C-alpha cells in the first residue's frame, strides 16, 4: 500500500493530532500545529485532511467541544467550560456548541446533571436486568 511507504509523514501528522489533543485549551493556531509537524501550512492542512477527513482547525474545534461536554456533565458552568477549553468568548462557544451538539450548552448541562442524579438515586436504572442478575445486584 502506497501510504505505508510514508510512515514518517504519518508519524508527524499523528504527532500534530496528539499536539491538538494535549494543547486544545491553549491559544494555538494552525501555524503552531504546522510548526509542530514540521510542514508548511498548506501541505500540513492537505495531509491532515486526507488522514482525518477534516481540517486541523475543525478538528481542534471538535476536541474543544468534546471536552466542554465532559466539563458540563461534571457540573462546570457554561462560562467556565468555554474558557477552560480555549474559547475567547462565551457567545462564540455557545453558538459553536449548539451547531455541533444540537442543543445549547446550558440545555446539555441540565440534561446531563438530571441523568447523573437519576443514576445516583437509582443505579440499577442504568443496568439491564440480565447484567444486574449476573453480578448478583438483584435477587
Amino acid at each position, binding site marked *: *500500500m502506497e*501510504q*505505508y511507504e510514508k*510512515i514518517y509523514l*504519518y*508519524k508527524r*501528522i*499523528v*504527532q500534530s*493530532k*496528539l499536539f491538538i489533543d494535549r494543547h486544545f485549551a491553549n491559544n494555538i493556531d494552525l501555524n503552531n500545529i504546522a510548526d509542530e509537524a514540521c510542514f508548511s501550512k498548506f501541505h500540513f492542512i492537505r495531509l491532515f485532511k486526507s*488522514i*482525518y*477527513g477534516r481540517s486541523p482547525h475543525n478538528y481542534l474545534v471538535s476536541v474543544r467541544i*468534546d471536552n466542554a461536554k465532559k466539563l458540563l456533565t461534571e457540573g462546570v458552568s457554561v462560562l467556565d467550560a468555554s474558557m477552560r477549553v480555549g474559547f475567547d468568548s462565551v457567545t462564540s462557544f455557545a453558538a459553536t456548541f449548539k451547531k455541533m451538539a444540537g442543543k445549547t450548552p446550558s440545555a446539555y448541562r441540565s440534561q446531563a446533571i438530571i441523568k447523573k442524579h437519576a*443514576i*445516583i438515586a437509582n*443505579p*440499577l436504572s*442504568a*443496568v*439491564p436486568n440480565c*447484567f444486574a*442478575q*449476573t*453480578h*448478583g*445486584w438483584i435477587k
Partner: protein
Amino acid sequence: MITKLSHLCIYVLNQDSAHDFYVNKLGFSVHTDAPMGEGARWLTVTPPEQPELEITLFLVAEGGMFDKETVATMTSLIKKGTFGAAVFTCNDLMATYQELIAKGVVFKKPPTKEFYGYEALFVDDSGNWFSLAQLNS
C-alpha cells in the same frame, strides 16, 4: 426481528485500569459510571462515532454467577489472551496504529493487508485482543 446491538460485554480484570485504557488510549467516552455498592461498579463506554453502543467493562470478580473458581479460570484465560472480543474499524489504519503505539498500546500484529482491507491486532490492559481494521470501501 433483531434490529441492532445496544450492549457488548468485555470482561476486564481491573476497572480503573480499563477506564484509563478505553478512555485515554482508545479515545472512547464514558456512557455510565455508576457505583453499585460494596465496591462494585457499572462502567460502560462508547466508541467515538457509535454513542448508542454501550461497551460494558465487566469486572471479573466474585459475586452473582461468578464463584471463586470461575473468577480464577476467567482471570487466567483473559491474561493468557484467549479472548478476541471485537472488531473495531477506523478510516485510516496507519494513522490510528501510529497514534495508539504513541500512547503505549501493545499490538500483536502490525497493519497487514487482508482480502477485506487492512488489519492490525491490539491487546487491552487485561489481555483481551481486538482486531482494528480499515475495510475496503
